[in-house]
């Protein structure tokens, strides 16, 4: 039998593998992004970039909890102009590169895109859902009018696919997804991290310098899977599942509930960069066992019941 086909397309973004590097994970330098691509990612998303440089929060910015990690990096980034230089340092036309952007208003987004437009960026992901930075994250996600403005502004500025990354810290993530689709998003990425906290009981203090951070890793998978499931029943654009994928079994769960692609972040903390190749192999074996010739054949199957 032939090897099952794992290639997918999200709008004009073509990927050999449905496994993407999630934003904020190693996405600081173009060399690291390329390395992750070479290690088996179908596409790589940069760290979220804002208009101005941000140093982010003080350390500790990360702490492990049972079954996951909390982070409060604080959207540290060199600012869009510096990041433009970063991307210009080498040829990137062969790299399935997605640039993640954050901002507080639509004009910031369109300015950032106009700066990057001449580069061979393959798609944009709008991070309107960072849980621990005031003004840039969940607040944006919550404000329907703002979300609309941002997406419309971005779509006006670029022909490239635009993914909208949503927050699970919303009562109604389905509505947010529908809204994004309505105003032209090409795909929905779900989910970002959950607002959470870890206290050190010896010193009686929050461990993260920012006190509150975002929860990622295996612990959030059942919630992320549910988000994808619900959104799949309500929107037609592709869904990129994200949250707690560590093993191929996790990935399959996401495909079955309707994800077209998957992003991996914290999985790298558990399995290293080989996580992409390992999961890819697991998916292939699974498809072979199930007699499927293409990954597309299993997307959304869990909705048949």
């Amino acid at each position, binding site marked *: 039998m032939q090897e099952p086909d794992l290639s997918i397309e999200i709008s004009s973004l073509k990927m050999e593998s449905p496994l993407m590097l999630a934003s*904020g*994970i*190693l*996405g*600081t*330098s173009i*060399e*690291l992004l*390329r*390395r992750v691509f070479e290690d088996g990612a179908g596409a790589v998303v940069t*760290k979220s970039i804002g208009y101005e*440089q*941000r*140093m*982010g929060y*003080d*350390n*500790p*910015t*990360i*702490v*492990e*909890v049972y079954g996951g*990690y909390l*982070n409060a*990096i604080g959207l*540290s*980034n*060199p*600012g869009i102009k*510096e990041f433009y230089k*970063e991307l210009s340092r080498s040829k990137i036309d062969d790299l399935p590169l997605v640039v993640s952007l954050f901002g507080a208003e639509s004009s910031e987004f369109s300015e950032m895109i106009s700066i990057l437009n001449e580069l061979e960026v393959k798609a944009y992901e709008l991070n309107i859902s960072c849980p621990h930075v005031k003004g840039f994250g969940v607040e944006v996600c919550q404000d329907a009018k703002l979300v609309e403005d941002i997406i419309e502004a971005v779509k006006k500025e670029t022909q490239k696919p635009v993914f909208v990354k949503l927050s699970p810290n919303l009562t109604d993530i389905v509505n947010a997804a529908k809204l994004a689709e309505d105003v032209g998003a090409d795909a929905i990425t779900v989910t970002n991290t959950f607002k959470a906290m*870890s206290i*050190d009981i*010896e*010193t009686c*203090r929050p*461990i993260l*310098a920012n006190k509150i951070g975002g929860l990622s890793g295996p612990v959030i998978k059942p919630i992320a899977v549910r988000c994808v499931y619900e959104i799949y029943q309500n929107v037609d654009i592709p869904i990129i599942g994200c949250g707690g994928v560590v093993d191929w079994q996790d990935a399959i769960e996401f495909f079955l509930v309707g994800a077209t692609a998957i992003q991996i*972040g*914290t999985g*790298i*903390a558990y399995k*290293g960069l080989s996580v992409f190749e390992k999961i890819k192999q697991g998916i292939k074996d699974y498809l072979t066992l199930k007699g499927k010739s293409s990954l597309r054949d299993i997307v959304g199957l869990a909705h048949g019941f």
Partner: protein
Amino acid sequence: MVSDKPRIVKVLNVRDESKTVRSLIFEDDICSKARPGQFVMVWIPGVDEIPMSISMTKANGLAGFTVRKVGEASSALFDMEAGSLLGVRGPYGRHFTPIIGDVMIVGAGTGLAPLMPLSEILTQNLSSIHMIIGGKTIDEFVFVDRARAILSKTKSEIIITTEDGSYGTKGLATDAMEPILKEGHIDKIYTCGPELMIKKVLEIAQVFSVPIQASLERIMKCGIGICGSCCIGRYRVCKDGPVFDSPKLEEIIGELGLFKRDHSGRATII
């Protein structure tokens, strides 16, 4: 697997190494098993969390690191007393791989921290060590006595260099390398210290075709290879390093000693 949550440890002992450098010793079974070159993320509650090389490990569950008073976090560590509480997570990263043979060690300042436990293992292995310790001036030397004690166990030598000639030979640490390398018996070079020194060590080692291992420093946030803040070329200092072999060092020679990234990820001149 050890969790990446800080383990709270009590500082048992503080040792003055110089006017600006102190070693903090604490009890932690996991750290006491660290390999030379590995580091811990040290949480100073309410202040910061910074990477520190393990400079000492004991069989009885003790471990220590050695800090130079530089900015806020290192000063807070420097000022800690016995009984203070710290968080540690790790040890993280790739360690020096000790060999049996004739080796050269080139270090300066707190760069000597990971080189001390390395030297201990090397002399246990009966390797001969040619240790070059460099510094600007006589005041800032640390670990010289400890190094002498360690090196006394095998046929080894210590060469001290200062830029102002106030201690040992006048000159740079790297100036002392060539005469020894010329004799042709050095199997490996280990180094840690200022990045420009490391770069120079690498270049000299290349001339003599001697493999090296160098421990590098970059801004660290996660310490576990996911945030990307410690990147150098295609590598993560926390996970692919901090100890790098010659081939990888050659790959990143374009950044080495030239630029590093600040907390925002922006590249800045070193």
